[in-house]
């Protein structure tokens, strides 16, 4: 029980990890911190450009479509669904990590599968949204939407939108791939042999981070 946490414990005198986590988990945290700065830089540059523009397109005008609903004006509804899917997949991921602690292999398989499914559902939604916007004439370097005040908008809006949601989508994609690899290992019994499911925790951290970034993207692009 050398990892028991007591108030008098000298964390830095050697003999155990001063952070009370394994090397791999600590490095995942540091990676996520650096990734947070990458996303932070992207979102803050978006904010800077928005602050220096005299006017900007209204997100409720731009994002108002829903699959199969034609031209019905439904601002925010589709992106709310995407947000719900991602939060839900975060929950199934925690449940997978929890099942890993219990060494319940069947439950890990079940919850990991749901998480992967959620990730794929989110990516499909994003693919639909991008296709829809592309058909409306929006792309990098092309912006068909007018500013709120009726003036012609620059392409800053679409450039930032596609770059940042694209970069986030790329993270979701690699998260799904990592989850599939880990699920394959669970099925093979790799972690049962190893005696712990810590790899599930590590990809779990990454997956929650992707959800965390979406919370900020959602606010910055759709609400503000």
């Amino acid at each position, binding site marked *: 029980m050398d990892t028991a946490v007591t108030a008098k414990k000298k964390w830095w005198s050697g003999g155990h990890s001063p952070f009370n986590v394994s090397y791999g988990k600590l490095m995942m945290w540091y990676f996520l911190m650096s990734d947070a700065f990458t996303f932070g830089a992207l979102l803050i540059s978006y904010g800077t450009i928005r602050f220096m523009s005299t006017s900007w397109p209204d997100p409720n005008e731009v994002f108002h479509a829903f699959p199969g609903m034609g031209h019905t004006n439904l601002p925010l509804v589709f992106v709310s669904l995407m947000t719900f899917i991602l939060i839900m997949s975060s929950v199934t991921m925690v449940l997978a990590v929890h099942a890993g602690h219990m060494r319940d292999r069947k439950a890990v398989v079940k919850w990991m599968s749901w998480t992967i499914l959620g990730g794929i559902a989110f990516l499909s939604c994003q693919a639909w949204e991008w296709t829809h916007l592309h058909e409306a004439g929006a792309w990098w370097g092309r912006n068909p939407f007018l500013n709120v005040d009726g003036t012609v908008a620059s392409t800053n809006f679409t450039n930032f939108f596609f770059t940042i949601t694209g970069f986030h989508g790329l993270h979701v994609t690699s998260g799904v791939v990592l989850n599939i690899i880990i699920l394959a290992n669970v099925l093979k019994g790799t972690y049962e042999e190893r005696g712990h499911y810590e790899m599930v925790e590590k990809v779990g951290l990454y997956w*929650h981070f992707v959800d965390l970034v979406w919370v900020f993207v959602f606010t910055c692009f759709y609400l503000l």
Partner: protein
Amino acid sequence: MEHTHTAVAHEEHGHDSSTKSIWKTFWILLVITIFEVGLAFLYLEYDFMARWALNGIFVTLTLVKAFFIVAEFMHLRHEIRNLIMTILMPLLLFVWFIIAFLADGDSWKNMRKDLSPGTPAAPAKHITNEHAPAHH
């Protein structure tokens, strides 16, 4: 050792209390998101409050959601202080980062507004405006 320890700790807490807090976090996140979307809809329909106040609410609620994801889902709240500090302290750079860059953007906007061709500048400012293009 660490892994056996955490496994034991979780078994002591029991299956139920742990999953309960997971679902509680889920409901908090869901309710906040629904509230945000609802507020955005109300604003669209009735325009009942100042835009800056609404944005302030959105940003605050976003930070609340971020707290719950990091603290509960990523489990950071239950780690030891050393780890929490090594993750959170560097993020304080964002405070400077955001203030400096948004202020920069805002000042650019003001300069461009004052200097754009055909802008009837206020008489008092007119003299400074004539010299301003030299800065470009």
